[in-house]
């Protein structure tokens, strides 16, 4: 960065030139720490030196001490704001994933587990895709088979998609896989990331060998809820308790003092090694139904070679009747249609209204109380294994990983 001098009218301003979002402006960081912007027009700018920056990345020093009495937990970085540091000059947030940096940020986790940080990649979760899910899945398997519980630091936007995907594709899971993230970036003292990481690591040391999401349980820094990966949804744009279990209770509650309270029994243990099931059909589409929707959308998806379409239908699981022909055509050409509800809460039932009955008759598969996002990842998994309609239907309507509850309990 450059140290510059700006002359405007009778006054001279000195400071560091900062990146400017608008081309017509130059942004100066004054020596008192404040930034101010100048219109480029009518000012003289002179470079007077170089500036190296305040924040230096902490270098990797040594392995942290191993403690026999503690369990091993791998923390996998995928990006997002959960594990990051601030550059005080630019305000830019950059990843902080060395043991030293983690220790500086959340020293408490080194008291409850032997921590193995590992960065898989650095992306915002809205840029996640199936290939990256596969990469995460394969990395998780490596770590689990080394006897380490796994915490995945993930951007929050699509965390529940990743959690669902891993729920279906990680087989013989022997240890917990805990996804966590941060709704308020790690650079602020009020960030939720510290408690989320702490509670997640704590939960990763249990015997709950399933994929879960662990995030703030309320707006307070007092406890986290642990949710089944297939039953959780981001239900708020900004609150730290945005993640909620839908149609079911959370799995457990982890207090900030480390106490874990389970709301269900521990799952059974598996024999043999954990593995990643890579038989996946990527050509699956998640389609939200709305009153003005046109059948051409479905025609287009069929022509594009999509193998499965998850309908996020209205109410109990309906679409407008003017889509029937296109759906019928798709099914005839081997495309699978699954029905979920955009109501989010509640269960699909296609017997109550004629619309539902007709869709069922066409071959649309009603998917109980599976969340649309979970249904999408489940379909990728199921279509990766069979092309036969009756088998697809059987698997889609069968509870594979907790995505279907038998009864919708009163919560």
């Amino acid at each position, binding site marked *: 960065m450059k140290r510059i001098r700006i002359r405007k009218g009778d*006054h001279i301003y000195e400071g560091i030139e900062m990146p400017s979002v608008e081309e017509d*402006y130059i*942004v100066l960081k004054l020596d008192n720490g*404040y930034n*101010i912007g100048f*219109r480029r027009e009518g000012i003289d700018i002179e470079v007077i030196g170089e500036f190296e920056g305040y924040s230096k990345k902490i270098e990797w020093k040594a392995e942290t001490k191993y403690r026999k009495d503690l369990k091993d937990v791998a923390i996998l970085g995928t990006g997002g704001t959960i594990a990051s*540091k601030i550059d005080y000059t630019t*305000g830019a947030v950059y990843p902080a994933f060395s043991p030293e940096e983690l220790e500086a940020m959340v020293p408490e986790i080194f008291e409850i587990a032997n921590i193995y940080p590992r960065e898989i990649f650095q992306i915002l979760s809205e840029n996640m895709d199936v290939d990256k899910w596969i990469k995460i899945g394969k990395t998780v398997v490596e770590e689990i088979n080394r006897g380490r519980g796994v915490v995945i630091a993930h951007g929050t936007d699509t965390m529940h998609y990743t959690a669902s995907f891993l729920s279906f594709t990680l087989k013989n899971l022997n240890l917990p896989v805990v996804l966590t993230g941060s709704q308020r970036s790690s650079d602020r*003292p009020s960030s939720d990331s510290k408690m989320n990481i702490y509670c997640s690591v704590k939960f990763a040391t249990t015997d709950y060998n399933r994929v879960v999401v662990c995030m703030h349980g309320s707006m307070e820094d007092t406890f986290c809820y642990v949710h089944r990966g297939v039953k959780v949804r981001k239900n708020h744009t900004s609150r730290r308790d945005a993640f909620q279990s839908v149609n079911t209770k959370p799995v457990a509650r982890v207090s900030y003092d480390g106490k874990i309270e389970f709301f269900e029994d521990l799952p059974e243990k598996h024999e043999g090694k954990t593995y990643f099931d890579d038989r996946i059909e990527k050509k699956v589409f998640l389609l939200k139904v709305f009153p003005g929707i046109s059948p051409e959308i479905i025609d287009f998806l069929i022509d594009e070679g999509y193998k499965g379409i998850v309908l996020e239908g209205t109410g109990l699981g309906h679409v407008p009747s003017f889509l029937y022909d296109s759906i019928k055509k798709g099914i005839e050409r081997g495309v699978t249609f699954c029905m979920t509800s955009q109501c989010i809460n509640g269960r699909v039932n296609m017997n109550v209204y004629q619309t539902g009955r007709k869709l069922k008759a066409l071959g649309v598969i009603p998917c109980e109380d599976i969340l649309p996002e979970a249904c999408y990842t489940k379909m990728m998994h199921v279509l990766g294994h069979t092309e036969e309609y009756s088998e697809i239907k059987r698997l889609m309507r069968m509870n594979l990983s907790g995505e279907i509850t038998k009864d919708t309990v009163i919560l």
Partner: protein
Amino acid sequence: MKIGLEIHAQLNTKKLFCDCDTDLLDNPTKTIERKLHVTVSELEEVDRAAFEESLKGKKHVYEAFDTSCLVYLDEEPPHEPNEEAIETVLKVSLLLNADIVDQIHFMRKMVIDGSNVSGFQRTAIVGLNGVVETDYGNVEIPTICIEEDAARKDREEKDRIFWKIDRLGTPLIEIATSPSIKTPEQGREVALFIGNILKATKKIKRGIGTIRQDLNISIDGGARIEIKGVQELNMIPTYIKEEVKRQENLLKIKEELEKRKAGIGEIYDITDLFKDTKCKIIKKAEKILALKLKNFSGILGMEIQKDRRFGSELADYARKYVPGIFHSDELPGYGISEEEKNRVTEKLESDSFVIVASSKEKAEKALKEVIKRIKIAFQGVPEETRKPLENGATAYARPLPGEARMYPETDVPPYNISEELIEKIKRELPELPRDKKIRLMKQYNLNEENATKIMAYDPDFFEEIMREYSIKPTIFLKAVEIYRSLGCENLEDLKIVFDYISKNRLVKEGIEKVLEEFSKGNMDIERIIENHGLKPITESDAEEVIQRIVIQNRDVIEKKGERAVSVLMGECMKVLRGKVDGKIVNEILRREIEKIK
């Protein structure tokens, strides 16, 4: 001597980054418990150990209200900055002859005491290079900022601090002068001048604590001291003088300590020496520890500021752990006997010492703080933030914060200030208070004193009254003064009084009675006039009354001649007071007496 001022005033708008009102509220409906985290990278220059200890286990409980939104609970990113607040700060900047930045960049200033839910305060520079002209010379205003006010601390329990978030996010204007103020009086004048400019915008909140002054003071060889939160303008010169005195005395103490080769000794357990003490504080305590000092006699008790001794400075530091200390210069005293003092002197082999009574741990920590403070005394004056006391002295609050760690508030885009906006605001600028005062004096033929009073009340209201009613400025002032002395603030109530006076339906002398009734909630002016006989009577009616009195007192006039006027005036006024102007009574009386003679 260097003196600088920092003035903070709350703007009477919505909150800076959401649309919530900024009124202070009473009944919180929700509490939210949080912890604030500080990562090592923020602590590069801070004493890490001390800092972490101070944070350990502290939880913050934020009390929110029905009307609180998510932004100031740090559960939603900030909205766009409040335009009215920004325009107000632009207005003040222009009135202070400052340059306006082309683009406002909000910054996050780390504040980790819990007073900001997010852990930082948002702040931005709006104006630069302003100047205030005073009778003592120009004072520069390097920066004018807009920022967020903090939450209100409600109470503290063991490991929890409770905050009300109603005030959090209220826009503040911060005006900082350079340290170019040269005298205590000039300090007051600058504060007054800036205060008047702020009021002229009519967007400043009124009431206690809405305008707060910080004073920065240092003398040659001394250190920068920030006196935070002075509310009473007239006290500014006193605080400055007292602080200068304090720094001078601390420098004297430094010299004296060097000369005497004074020193700090060990800490002794002297619990045994106080077995049968009459001092209640010591009796209650588990441990009594003494810090031995060498050659400090007389220095501990030396007055360095009004009613404050060097010992008070030591006590301020110890107060982190104990309520107070005893030092040898104030003993015997506080129930500690001469004999007990001698015992300590004997054991310590020194006649100067500091005693602390508490639990072992607290007493030790307190004495360590005392040692810390004494060590600084050998070097001179410590840089500190101090809190103003009522008598003009100050007490230690905390060390002066280091250079603020600031970084860009990336959730708020830069805010462009167009030339059109500046032109628009320039057209709307209120008349500068100083110009207005001069104009009022000329236009309404006021003396300086009355013009100053009117400026302090509400000059616009004054002008409105002058336009609409035919009354004299002195009547206006009288009414306002009476009404305010009765504890009433709503000057609008006075309009009907002015109306009655200008229509000659109420005597001027009746104002007091009417306002007294008003202040009791009785606003029926007709009835008040009726009940108290405040209706003006005509001159001919008055003449009749006076004639009668003159005739009745014929003998007095014959005896005293001219001088009878003063005697009979009293008689007349007994009857006419409040109904006819005294001057007129006097005139008629003279005329009537003249007739008889």
